[in-house]
């Protein structure tokens, strides 16, 4: 019996999806890319854009039509706003926050499904079901005994409750050499453009012992690139002050393990909030080889007024101080950022300030998003007053500025030999694609797919704005 998951959204959703898949497969379901042959159909939803939520509605309409012809169970989880959740309850069989994933086997039992084969006999009703026997391969990793449905307090949605149990599920890693480790969930920052505080709830930090166990397991298995994930990854520990280590201390623990492991691997983290970015964190990164010298530091806008309106709780000057610390303590670090262009009320002068910020901070990469209203976020109450074409123009203006600096950086790599992690075949025929420690794309001629997932040395020979090309050094 097969399952099919529609996965929408960010890296956090991808990471969550690895745990969802693990639960499905421990129950004995097999994954399929073809939704028409699946009996269990699920969506990991994203509420960042209305477009993604529209996709969920369109999927469930189709799936519910199929129900006339065959036995199906549908579910939706992930980032769902409370108002959408109410609507989904009418159309999906199961709607649950990610934190309730550990109870999925019990939920599915309520439909009379005790094994994938049970879906064949769903229409015979519950009375014919035998005592549930679940196909759990590893009970230690996936405890079923004693699980009870949480008391549903007057229908209130608490996406963060139970997230610790969710983290206990061993993920079904999507790659043999790159992995995500969720270390923190939720957000207390309430940026006005973002709905995450309403879909994922408050900040909760995962116990450092668990994080270290997962990291050590991955390193032992030969993973080369590990990314610590959180909506505010560097707010780690702030919700458990005095009871849990700080983000800097967690990185230090990872660094010490890296030194003693004798293995080569790179540890990244995303996404941090400038407000919680301490000099101590930067200093720790500078000291340990395994802590990758690549910092993703979202600025969102280079204008103080826009930052106030975005409720970002930092100024350009405060951001500048962090970048100065990075440049002083880790001069070799690459710098990535996120920018929203065309935010409600953004003036030409404010746009110019963002362009100047790109010029000043010389980013290697900026994920520039044209502002779109996020239903549920505070800014959705304001008129989205910058026309689409104007947003596009501003997007291109900022992208052009970014390309000047990323190209300049990449040109300076020409002639240098870099350690790179080979990630897969490149779009260019006969080439492999790799990333430097600073996440600069390097492609090189090779058909040897056995190199995928390993570190090699490549001498850079040419550079484009967002990539480089070279030859492998044997």
């Amino acid at each position, binding site marked *: 019996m097969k399952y099919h998951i529609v996965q929408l959204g960010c890296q956090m959703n991808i990471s969550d999806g690895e745990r969802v898949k693990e639960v499905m497969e421990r129950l004995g379901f097999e994954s399929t890319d073809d939704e028409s042959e699946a009996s269990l159909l699920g969506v990991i939803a994203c509420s960042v854009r209305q477009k993604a939520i529209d996709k969920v509605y369109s999927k469930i309409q189709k799936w519910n039509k199929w129900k006339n012809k065959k036995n199906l169970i549908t579910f939706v989880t992930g980032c769902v706003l*409370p*108002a959408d*959740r*109410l609507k989904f309850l009418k159309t999906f069989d199961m709607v649950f926050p990610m934190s309730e994933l550990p109870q999925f086997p019990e939920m599915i039992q309520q439909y009379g499904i005790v094994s994938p084969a049970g879906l064949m006999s769903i229409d015979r009703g519950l009375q014919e079901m035998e005592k549930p026997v679940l196909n759990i391969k590893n009970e230690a990793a996936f405890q079923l005994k004693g699980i009870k449905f949480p008391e549903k*307090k*007057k*229908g*209130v*949605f*608490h996406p963060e409750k139970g997230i610790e149990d969710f983290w206990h599920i061993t993920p079904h890693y999507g790659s043999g050499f790159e992995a995500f480790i969720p270390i923190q969930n939720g957000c*207390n920052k*309430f940026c*006005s453009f973002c709905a995450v505080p*309403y879909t994922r709830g*408050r900040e909760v930090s995962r116990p450092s012992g668990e994080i270290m166990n997962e990291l050590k397991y991955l390193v032992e298995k030969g993973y080369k690139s590990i990314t610590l994930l959180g909506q505010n990854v560097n707010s780690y520990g702030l*919700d458990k002050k005095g009871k849990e280590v700080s983000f800097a201390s967690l990185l230090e623990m990872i660094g010490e393990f890296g030194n003693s492991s004798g293995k080569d691997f790179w540890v990244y983290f995303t996404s941090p909030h400038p*407000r919680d970015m301490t000099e101590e964190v930067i200093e720790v990164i500078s000291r340990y080889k395994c802590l990758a010298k690549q910092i993703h530091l979202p600025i969102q806008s280079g204008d*103080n*007024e826009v930052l*106030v*309106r975005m*409720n970002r*709780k930092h*100024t350009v*000057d*405060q951001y500048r101080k962090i970048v100065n610390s990075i440049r002083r303590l880790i001069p070799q670090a690459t710098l990535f950022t996120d920018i929203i262009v065309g935010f409600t009320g953004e003036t030409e002068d404010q746009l110019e300030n963002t362009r100047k910020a790109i010029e000043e901070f010389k980013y290697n990469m900026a994920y520039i998003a044209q502002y779109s209203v996020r239903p549920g976020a*505070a*800014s959705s*109450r304001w008129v989205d007053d910058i026309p689409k074409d104007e947003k596009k123009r501003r997007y291109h203006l900022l992208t052009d500025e970014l390309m000047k600096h990323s190209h300049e950086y990449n040109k300076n790599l020409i002639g240098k030999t870099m350690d790179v992690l080979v990630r897969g075949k490149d779009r260019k025929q006969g080439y492999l694609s790799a990333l430097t420690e600073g996440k600069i794309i390097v492609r090189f001629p090779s058909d040897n797919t056995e190199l995928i997932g390993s570190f090699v040395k490549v001498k850079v020979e040419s550079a484009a704005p967002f990539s480089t090309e070279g030859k492998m050094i044997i």
Partner: protein
Amino acid sequence: MSDNFQKILNVRNLTNSTFVLEIEKNGMIFEPGQHILLGKAGDIHHREYSIYSGVDDPSLEVLVKEVEEGDVSKKLKRLKSNDEVEIQGPLGFFTIEEEFLNGDSSFLFISSGTGISPFHSMVKSIPGLNYKLLHGIRTIDEAYEKDQYDPDRYIACTSRDNNGDFHGRVTDYIKSHDIDKNTHCYLCGNFEMIRDAMDLLEEKGIAQDHLHAEVYF
């Protein structure tokens, strides 16, 4: 962080649309200036509300203005004593840093409407605070519980009547008065007021690190 259903102890109506909810505190510890997420018990909608009460007050208070198309405030307006609300918090960073409280720091609090809420909490919580509070309102009846402030420090800036301490917007007041460059300025209220006031304060030489804002949406 607490996360609770808590009972309403009392409702103080200040105007036809503005009221203070007194809620069971249940031991919540917060810093003046922080906010909570608040909604009617069982409702899917919650909104951020600054805490109005002082840190040592026996109950937790929020100042609410009913918004015509609001998902939350209209429901809160209908609540009575013993009804339940759901609270998450405390949250937020709009607080006065400890180091600012040492020495002879002076504070200028600039608010519009219910944006006075965090300053009410600060004034009640921090004894001896050297502050001046500008409150931008349309008419004097919106000078919510003005008797709770030192009359020499509270300035009602009324834009639509002459019954306040200053006739005009808070920005007009800023334009027409000198402000010491070392003053720590805290702004809370609607974005347009904050934007205009920040521009004026910067023109008057207040450094960016002396400007702190909490926008009400």
